[in-house]
């Protein structure tokens, strides 16, 4: 068989004999992209159910209640009239936070004491806790400024001067690259890439294992030729799949793409190379596709979690850091998100280099194993026939 015939044979397997393989390569990342694109469609956490226990019931306390009601981040689901009732809301998780305005709230402010508002937040789900504390802080900060300016005005200072005295420093926050703090932009592309990796694993694994099961078919061809011709179609398909996924992410889910297409191209082909190499080596050791699939599924969750995509590398313990460096996804996801959202990734060239070196090494190893195992298997079969 010449090169072309071998590539054709593999394409025939991918498209006719075992269409699953093509399905994995294109389907996995798209399925994940769509599921999570829809899930994180709202972008940010809004309408956190809260209750406000207004023990003061004055004009001033109602202004504060109104400020909470006006925030899109909160939804007031109850106004309890006792501490027990307030705690009941939290206990039953009908509300994730309770704002307790003390009875002498207004009197203290106009008098000579300061007043304390208590925010009780559930710490069980930190995504919610974070929204509660940040937003409450913002609301109370603004409320403070208004009230204190009025207090100084009362001493006889003009309005603007009073405002500057009481709130001498304006605080402005500029959120770069993902200004709306969108979870969709932050999260979804990484999840799609985890599935993309899985798709490559399953497709290449199926191909390698079936090759070992029909080892005599290409027994006369050189092993480098066999492996190259076998893996080439997956390489091309996976690269196309990467860009299809990206296109859907950009067009359908409005994930920004501020980076350069050539950077994306080199990063993707380097990653595909490594993913193909990695799966070829692992598949060479598996006796059946079922075992291989189990391994591959077990691997996928740690691969994503330890890729530094969410939990930053700097916050990992040395043990986890070491493992993270071994996972191919570590070199793709974070860099890809950087390219999409910021237009560049500081470690891009390092990542591409590592992936290329790793990819070439793994594919060479898989080829070497193939040559050895083929030799052994064909010898065994010949011995059985002659014996």
């Amino acid at each position: 068989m010449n090169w072309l015939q071998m590539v054709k044979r593999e394409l025939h397997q991918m498209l006719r004999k075992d269409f699953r393989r093509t399905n994995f390569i294109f389907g996995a990342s798209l399925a994940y992209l769509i599921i999570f694109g829809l899930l994180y469609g709202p972008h940010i956490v809004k309408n956190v159910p809260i209750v406000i226990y207004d023990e003061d019931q004055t004009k001033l306390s109602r202004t504060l209640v109104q400020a909470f009601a006006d925030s899109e981040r909160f939804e007031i689901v109850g106004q309890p009239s006792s501490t027990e009732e307030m705690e009941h809301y939290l206990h039953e998780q009908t509300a994730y936070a309770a704002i307790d305005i003390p009875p002498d709230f207004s009197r203290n402010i106009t008098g000579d004491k300061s007043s304390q508002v208590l925010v009780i937040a559930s710490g069980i789900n930190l995504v919610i806790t974070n929204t509660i504390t940040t937003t409450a802080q913002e609301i109370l900060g603004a409320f403070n400024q208004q009230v204190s300016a009025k207090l100084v005005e009362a001493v006889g200072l003009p309005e603007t001067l009073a405002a500057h005295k009481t709130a001498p420093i304006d605080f402005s926050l500029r959120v770069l690259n993902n200004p709306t703090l969108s979870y969709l932009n932050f999260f979804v592309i990484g999840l799609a890439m985890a599935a993309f990796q899985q798709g490559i694993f399953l497709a290449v694994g199926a191909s390698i294992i079936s090759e070992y099961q029909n080892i005599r078919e290409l027994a006369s061809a050189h092993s480098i030729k066999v492996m190259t011709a076998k893996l080439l179609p997956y390489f091309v398909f996976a690269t196309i799949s990467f860009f299809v996924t990206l296109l859907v992410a950009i067009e359908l889910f409005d994930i920004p793409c501020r980076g350069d297409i050539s950077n994306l191209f080199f990063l993707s082909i380097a990653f595909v190379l490594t993913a193909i190499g990695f799966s070829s080596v692992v598949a060479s050791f598996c006796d059946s596709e079922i075992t291989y699939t189990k391994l591959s599924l077990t691997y996928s969750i740690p691969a994503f979690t330890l890729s530094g995509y969410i939990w930053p590398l700097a916050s990992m313990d040395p043990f986890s850091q070491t493992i993270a460096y071994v996972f191919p996804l570590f070199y793709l996801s974070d860099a890809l998100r950087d390219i999409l959202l910021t237009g560049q990734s500081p470690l891009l060239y390092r990542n591409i280099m590592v992936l290329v070196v790793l990819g070439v090494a793994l594919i060479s190893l898989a080829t070497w194993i193939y040559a050895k195992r083929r030799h052994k298997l064909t010898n065994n079969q010949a011995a059985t026939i002659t014996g």
Partner: protein
Amino acid sequence: MFNLLAHEFRALFKNKGAPLLILFGIPILYTVLFGFLYSANSVKNIPLVIFDQDQTSTSRSLVQAFADSERYHIVAQVNSEPDLKETMNKNNAMAALVIPQNFSRDIKLSHATTVMMESNATNLMFANNVLSTSQEIVQTYAAAVGQKLVEGINQPPTQALKTVAPVRMSVRVINNPTASYSNFVLSGLTVNGIQLAIFMVSCTLLTKEYASLARRRELSSLTVIISKLVPCWLMSILSYLVCIGILVSLFGTPLRGSVLQLLLIGSAFNFAVASLGLFISAAAPNVLSAMQNSAIYIMSSFLCSGYSWPQFAMNSFGKAYAAILPITYAAMTIRDILLAAYAPGLLNNTLILIAFGGVFCVLSIAVFSLRRRRFVSEAQEELA
């Protein structure tokens, strides 16, 4: 029946104990691996760059306030806008504090001055932290400065502080007071590992059964299904308890609720997942493709369950998808029992999971009998 159960128990030890290795190995591996990963508990030492254009003692005291916070680690002080940009672009810093020129003078003259915080929000883990902590630091600092200014218009210090910060906010975080990320996420990842392990074992259980149907023709479908389900289910409960033990003893996850409650919801969940796997095993023409195709459902389920992205923030697609996932009813309930000692949905969720498992059990029995009948009649036709 007893003999059959004993036989199926032994089967879990076959192939060098592969099924047992999966049932115990994956959940324990996940628990330990992620336990170490999140051992830092929170994101600290966020790399911060300072662009202080004022360089006065006032501005330096603000910088000091950031330096004193364990959340930040000052990695650089830059002197120009381009340097600032470069440091941020190179990801050497995830946040920047920009203090304007004349900061100190403007404060003294009661002119408005603006401190700016920049945050790189590609990873929200950093951005959310920057958002809440920087606001707190600057507000506290501003209150102290404001106090001094108001003292200047002849108010005594305590009165002045009260004037600039009439309302103080105190935050009490209940059930997870240190906002530990490990407490928040670890038990869910363990439950996810258990789900994956049960699924992998149960969805191959009936495959071999079809091949050896002739031998076991005398057994009713119900008997076959029960004998397959029970050993896998019992072992998975044991594995679940071991993992909870590891979480609590090794990784400091609090156990505030009762073990019995944990056992109740865990058993119901394991039953639901095992039944689902068994159903797939009964119905699939080819186990391999069944396992691979249902992988998307199993693998995506944890993130879609409302465990981190809350259900009230989901759109109708998210809510509908979460409703059909067994893990939705288990993972959060288990976390509630661990952290809050009480899970409002415990009874409801347990019943839903039992019903879920029951339905798939009945379906497995129906599909198994149907396929078995077809197999047998085909075999008889071939013989004839």
